[in-house]
């Protein structure tokens, strides 16, 4: 009988139809030395976290630096991480502290840079009706929110955190978080209304 060597194909759990591992499981695997687990975790949360930091930081270079610092804090803390809360709460709590440090350092609470072509009042009603344009305009409007309301909105929109989790991340009382989100939504709705 002749033996034939066949390279083994590494297949992930998704290919087997298994559910993707949750964040806590990935952190535990990374703490045990599985760097591919960190990569999965990173790819899952990188984009919303990046947008959260960029929309709170006036300068892109500062935002990039803060973004890297947050992930390095996650890497260094992997051995101490306890899944007493959701991983996103832990992640955004680190990001909140980092951004707060940066704001204190810069001492400038100005609006973030508004994306180009975000506000095009010459556009036809048909163009304005498209949700993509409206969404872009909405993002620009988010940049005009006061910092605390902006952060609360972004934690909800990007991190998908509950009001209770936002209170934990920001250290603000639950009712304060609730009213910040309410005023933020009210402002954004008024901005949306001016486009209609």
């Amino acid at each position, binding site marked *: 009988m002749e033996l034939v060597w066949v390279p083994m194909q590494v297949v992930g759990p998704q290919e087997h139809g298994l559910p993707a591992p949750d964040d806590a499981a990935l952190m535990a695997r990374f703490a045990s030395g599985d760097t591919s687990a960190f990569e999965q975790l990173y790819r899952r949360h990188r984009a919303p976290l990046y947008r959260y930091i960029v929309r709170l930081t006036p300068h892109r270079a500062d935002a990039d630096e803060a973004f890297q610092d947050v992930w390095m804090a996650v890497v260094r803390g992997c051995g101490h991480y306890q899944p007493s809360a959701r991983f996103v709460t832990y992640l955004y709590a680190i990001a909140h502290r980092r951004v707060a440090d940066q704001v204190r350092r810069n001492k400038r609470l100005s609006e973030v840079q508004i994306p180009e072509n975000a506000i095009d009042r010459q556009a036809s009603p048909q163009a304005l009706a498209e949700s993509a344009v409206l969404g872009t305009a909405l993002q620009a409007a988010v940049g005009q929110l006061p910092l605390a309301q902006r952060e609360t909105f972004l934690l909800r929109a990007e991190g998908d955190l509950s009001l209770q989790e936002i209170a934990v991340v920001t250290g603000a009382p639950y009712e304060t978080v609730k009213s910040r989100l309410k005023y933020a*939504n009210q402002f954004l709705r008024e901005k949306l209304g001016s486009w209609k």
Partner: protein
Amino acid sequence: MTPDDDNDILKSYRSAANEAPPAAIDHQILSAASAFRARQRQFPLLLGLAAGLLIALYATLPKFGPAPAEPRDPRLAQAGLSEGRAAQFLSNPEQMQQSAFRQMPGGAN
């Protein structure tokens, strides 16, 4: 204002929120994470090697130190005499006897 209105705002926002970090930053972060774990794995091995090296050095280096002290004469210790000349004197019984005779009245002759 209803929760549905708030959900519409979230939906509108998320539909256009597609910004992501640059690939260079992705690479830096993932590389740093791999390097950190590699250092964590190597640290116990390096610690063991360093300890082994220290033990080997300690075992092989020649021992330097002061010369062993001469045994103390218990008689001198009781009398509180200095060890130098008195020790030489006590170690020579004939000299001690002659010294005793000299000290006797009329013994110096």
